[in-house]
């Protein structure tokens, strides 16, 4: 026997494609050639596999070995093919029965000593294998829990090449114990609580409304006003992810290699706060070869917080616009197109000016031009997509004292948010919108127009030129979220009144 075949999975973004790994042993000068658009990390499998086989006590066939990865036109990246390459070569050499490799997808990186190392992207790879009809997978033992998240797949975790050989020969191998499990500890990690934010009653209420309607949020205010505190608490009041969303989020985190070991499923809304020196690639994804997901995709179904937003390069901020609109990032490379989900709630925070006096605007020493230019770095089209734009005032000592009691915690707010989201989802279902934030302005002014009596206060703001047409739509959208939180069928006059406060005075 001089030919054998194994299967593995190649990832492009979070989309997996089943790859056939074929090994052919021929007469000739001993050597190993890998074909089928391998990138350097795949090509290096040559040396890793040989060392691992030898160090596992097997003999390396002294033949001319050709390994083909098919389809040959699909670029392959990463070290996850090692296992399939080793299995195919050993089966072709007659060390293992080739029939045992039928209908199994193998994923994993080999160490030189024959250990099998965990790899990125196991969850999307297993999902792809299942989709293409392969229901048995062999994965590194450290990734087994992640692979088991996919229902209907038979997962075998292997820690060494010996174990893999024992598995394909149908023997039971000396079992190396799995790494210690830290199951379910991560999801229970305490999130910062909304009750910690004292003296920013308007800010807390804005966070609640943002969570209920899925609205983007921009917070402007002096240092110490609590912008960052508020932003960090938004994920804590978002509803837990449903099964589909959790798998989607976990898949992206798996590709990025940031899943915690042991308890792989991400069940809570993720939170990403990239620093303002982040590049476009770091934010929206990219990099050479296989584009990696950026912070935007890691925050999918959760919160992307950009602190000191004007300090981000304008190009970086503007790169967010299109993904925010579409809910996904599409990164095109000559070798293919990677798509990553990017449905995030954006939270921007900014000081009103570069001098940023903690006492607020009264103590500002910036010139009016400087101030305008500073906030002008956040482009109009980006701000247009942000429903809640709030000026936070510095917290006064009296407010701190007054509000020390009577402050709700995140759990209480989250309960209201869950109900509000359900009410909104039910109302908009026929139109295909999930949250109030997705409702276009035309619908708010058209079929869902509020009675004149109810919207009188916003109309007056528009009449007086204190609110733009877009600002008008934003206020209406927020009024629906406030109504949902209050359990009203449609916004009342008071709901609309309250919504008018969730905007920047003058700028909106």
């Amino acid at each position, binding site marked *: 026997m001089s030919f054998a075949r194994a299967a593995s999975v190649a990832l492009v973004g979070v989309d997996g494609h089943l790859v056939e790994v074929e090994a052919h042993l021929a007469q000739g000068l001993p050597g190993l050639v890998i074909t089928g658009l391998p990138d350097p990390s795949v090509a290096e499998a040559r040396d890793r596999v040989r060392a691992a086989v030898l160090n596992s006590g097997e003999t390396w066939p002294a033949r001319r070995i050709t390994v083909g990865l098919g389809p040959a036109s699909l670029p392959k990246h990463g070290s996850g093919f090692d296992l399939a390459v080793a299995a195919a070569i050993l089966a072709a050499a007659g060390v293992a029965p080739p029939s045992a490799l039928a209908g199994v997808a193998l994923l994993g990186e080999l160490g030189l000593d024959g250990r099998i190392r965990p790899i990125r992207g196991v969850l999307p790879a297993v999902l792809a294998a299942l989709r293409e009809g392969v229901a048995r997978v062999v994965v590194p033992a450290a990734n087994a829990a992640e692979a088991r998240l996919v229902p209907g797949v038979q997962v075998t975790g292997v820690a060494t090449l010996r174990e893999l050989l024992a598995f394909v020969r149908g023997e039971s191998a000396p079992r190396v114990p799995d790494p210690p499990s830290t199951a379910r500890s991560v999801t229970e990690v305490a999130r910062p609580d909304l009750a910690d934010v004292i003296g920013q*009653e308007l800010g807390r209420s804005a966070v609640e409304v943002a969570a209920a309607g899925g609205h983007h949020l921009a917070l402007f205010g002096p240092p110490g006003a609590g912008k960052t505190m508020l932003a960090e608490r938004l994920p804590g009041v978002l509803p837990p992810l449903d099964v589909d969303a959790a798998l989607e989020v976990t898949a992206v985190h798996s590709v990025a290699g940031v899943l915690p070991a042991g308890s792989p499923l991400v069940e809570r809304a993720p939170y990403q706060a990239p620093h303002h020196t982040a590049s476009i690639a770091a934010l929206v994804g990219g990099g050479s070869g296989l584009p990696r997901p950026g912070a935007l995709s890691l925050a999918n179904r959760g919160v992307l917080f950009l602190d000191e937003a004007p300090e981000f390069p304008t190009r970086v901020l503007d790169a967010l616009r299109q993904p925010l609109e579409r809910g996904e990032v599409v990164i095109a490379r000559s070798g293919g197109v990677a798509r990553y989900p990017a449905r995030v709630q954006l939270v921007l925070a900014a000081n009103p000016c570069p001098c940023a006096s903690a006492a607020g605007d009264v103590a500002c020493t910036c010139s009016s031009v400087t101030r305008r230019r500073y906030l002008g770095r956040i482009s109009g089209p980006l701000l247009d997509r942000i429903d809640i734009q709030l000026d936070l005032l510095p917290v006064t000592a009296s*407010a701190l004292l007054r509000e020390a009691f009577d402050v709700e915690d995140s759990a209480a707010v989250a309960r209201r948010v869950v109900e509000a989201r359900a009410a909104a989802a039910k109302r908009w279902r026929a139109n295909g919108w999930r949250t109030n934030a997705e409702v276009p302005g035309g619908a708010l002014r058209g079929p869902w127009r509020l009675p004149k009596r109810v919207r*009188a206060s916003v109309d*007056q703001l528009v009449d007086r030129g204190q609110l733009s047409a877009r600002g008008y739509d934003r206020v209406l959208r927020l009024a629906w979220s406030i109504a949902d939180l209050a359990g009203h069928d449609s916004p009342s006059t008071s*709901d609309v*009144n*309250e919504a008018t406060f969730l905007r920047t005075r003058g700028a909106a």
Partner: protein
Amino acid sequence: MTGPDETRLARVALARLVEPGHRELGALVRASGPVEALDRVRAGAVSAGLHAAARTRIEGADPIEQAADDLARCDRLGGRLITPEDEEWPSTLEALADISTTDEPHVYPPLCLWARGPHRLATVAERAVAVVGARAATTYGGHVASELGYGLADRGWAVLSGGAYGIDGAAHRGALSADGVTVAVLACGVDTAYPVGHANLFERIAEEGLVLSEWPPGATPQRHRFLVRNRVIAALGGGTVVVEAASRSGARMTARRAHELGRVVMAVPGPITSAMSVGPHELVRDFGARLVVSSAQVIEEVGALGEGIDAEDVPVRSQSWRDELEPRAARILDAVPMRRAKPVERIAADAGLPARDVRRTLPTLMLLGLVEEVVSGYRLTASARVELSTREAAPVPELR
């Protein structure tokens, strides 16, 4: 004996035979009634000029039959015919007879009007303002026209215009977006969309306002008809606002007719360097047109005494507003400072209520003109200070 149907048919037939507004025909109809007038026109027993105007069409099909067809067609599309015999006929149109001269033969009142839309024309014409202007309007002109349309309609005035691109369309849309009444007077049949790009607009106006025409359904727009049509717009409106117009234009013509009729002519100023503002500026110089910059100023010109002044600055507030305030709102109002504005949180603390309650109520108090927003927060308005200056002496009784 002439029955009502016969009269209507005769009017439609005459309107078909001679282009509308014909002075001699109009006078003849006034003197002898439409039925006899039709007989005489058909028999050629009229002056040479009128005979010549009608001759080419007399030789075609039977005008009475055609008129019946027109009425049937109008019925099918849900329209109606309005004639001076109907109580819906607006008396304002009759003034056109007084300004007609032999030099301008087509200024007489319409013989009849075709209409689509739910409103009674005479009622609408009681409170109507024409907003007209150039088709090639600038962004500024379009903005002003839609603001005027919105503001007028919002205050219960019907907005008249000609349904053209530019200023006309903007004025109509402005009125529609205020849920108000707007009237498009067309120079073609009420079922004909001209310009085609306004087909949807006309459908909406036919549903929520009025589409009018002197020409029967199916009539095509012709160049001279627009000028003839303009006299109807001028006569129906209590005044005419020209937003933007070139030096020689239809809008200027409408304004001239309004001037002749003794209606208020108003002009919206613009940059003196803009060709589209030459028309309004000339109106100010030549006819003494009033400069207007807001719908309130327009209403001040055309409305009852003092109406416009009320419309903008002092919100309508009934004498008993105090009694109508919710207890919570009254309590918040009491906490709003007289002069030195305070932010929401301070007002909430003074009222002993959560800040959220204050936010949910303040805009309503602002709407009533009791509270105003300034940079540092909120305070009472000047008028509220006067009314509330007695509040220490006589506390609001319904306070809890």
